[in-house]
C-alpha cells in the first residue's frame, strides 16, 4: 500500500518586497518529472529581478501555472506528489 500526499509549490510571500505581479520565465523541469527536494524548479521575474523556486519535497511534479503566465506572491504554481511506502 502506497500513501500519496500532494505538497504545494508556492511562491514565498516574502520573495520580493513590492506588491507587484511576476511572471514565470522558465520551468527547468517538465510536468510529471521526478524531482528531489532542493532542486531548482523555476525562475520567476518581478521588476526585472529573477528569483529561484526550489522543490520543497521529493516526488512527481505537476505544473499548474505555465511559463510566461503571471503570478503573485503566495500563489501555488505546482504540486509535488510525495509517495511514502
Amino acid at each position, binding site marked *: 500500500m502506497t500513501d500519496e500526499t500532494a505538497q504545494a509549490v508556492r511562491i514565498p510571500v516574502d520573495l520580493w518586497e513590492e506588491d507587484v505581479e511576476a511572471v514565470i520565465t522558465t520551468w527547468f523541469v517538465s510536468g510529471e518529472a521526478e524531482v528531489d527536494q532542493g532542486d531548482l524548479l523555476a525562475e520567476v521575474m518581478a521588476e526585472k529581478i*529573477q528569483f529561484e523556486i526550489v522543490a520543497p519535497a521529493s516526488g512527481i511534479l505537476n505544473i499548474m501555472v505555465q511559463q510566461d503566465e503571471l503570478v503573485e506572491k503566495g500563489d501555488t504554481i505546482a504540486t509535488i506528489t510525495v509517495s511514502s511506502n
Partner: protein
Amino acid sequence: MAAKERKLTVARAMAEAMSQEMRADEQVFVMGEDVGPLGGVFGNTRGLYEEFGKERVRDTPISETAFMGAAVGAAADGMRPIVELMFVDFFGVCFDAIYNLMAKNTYFSGGNINVPAVIMTSTGGGYSDGGQHSQCLYGTFAHLPGMKVVVPSNAFDAKGMLTAAIRDNSPVIYMFHKGLQGMGWLGTEAGATVNVPEEQYTVEIGKAATVSEGHDVTIVSLGMGVHHSLRAAALLQEKGVSAEVVDLRALVPLDRDHIFESVKKTGRLVVVDEDYQSYGVSGEVIASVVERDISILKAAPQRVAYPDIPIPFAHHMEQWALPNAEKIVSACLEVTHSDG
C-alpha cells in the same frame, strides 16, 4: 526510468561554462559592465563574482574603448580574458581594438603572439528597446578576417561553444541573442532551454547542425531564427511541405559543406537572418551554394532577413520588420511552388 532532466537557460549555461573554465585555468577572467555583483544584465555571469572575487570578475567603467583595449593587451600577454560588450550595438567606440588589434596582431607578429580573447555580446530585438539596442550585426563581425564568430541557439551549444571559445587561441566573438537567455523581460524562447550536461564539453566551432530533417526545402538560420524556422517547419508539414532546418552555429568558420549538402538534397534554399538583409549573412549563405554548383537548385533562393532600415522602437513597427514563422512559411511555399 529516464535520466533526470538538467535543463538550463542559455544564461545559466554560459555562467557554468565560464565558472568551470575559471576553476581549471587561472588565466581566465571576466571583464565588463555589471558583470560583477549584478551577475550581468542578461544573467550570464551570475555566481561568478561570489566564487572568484573582484580580481577575476571585474566590473569596468562605462568605457568600452578602455576595457576592450585592456583585454587585447591581457590576451597578448598570456591571459585569457572574456570580455562582455553589453550590447553589440555599442561596438562603434571599441572597434579599433577589436578589428585592428585583436583580429590582426597574430598576423602582424608573424604568428608569434596569440590573442586568445573572447568577446561575448548580446544581439537581437523584439522587445522594443530601440535601434541602438536591438541589432544583430552578425555580418559586420563575420566580414572581418582574423576572428571566429559563433551564435548559439540553445543552452547545450551555448555551454559547449563558450568552453571551446575560451580554450581557442584565436579571438572569438560570441554573439548571444537576448531572446534566448531565459530573461522574461526580453521575451523568452522556451526552445532554447534544453538539457545540459554538468561535466565540461566542447562544441566544435565551425560545424553547422541539422536540427530538423526534411526533403523539399532547406531553411538555413542562426540564433533566434532557428526557433522561428522550426515553428515554420511544423506549419509547413501540415501543408505537405517537408522542410529541413540547418542551424549554422558559427559564422566564422562557415560550414559551407553542410549548407551545400543539405541544399543538394532538397534543391531549394531559404535563409533566415535577423541581421540586415543587404551585404550580409544571408547573401553569403546563398553564395556558398551558387558558387559551387548552380545546377542543384530547383528554384531561386529566398531570404527572410531584416529590412535595410534602422530598427523601429514602436512595437508594431518592430514586429512588422522582424523575421517570423509566417514569413518563413511564405518564402518556403514560394520556392516549393515555383518549379511546379
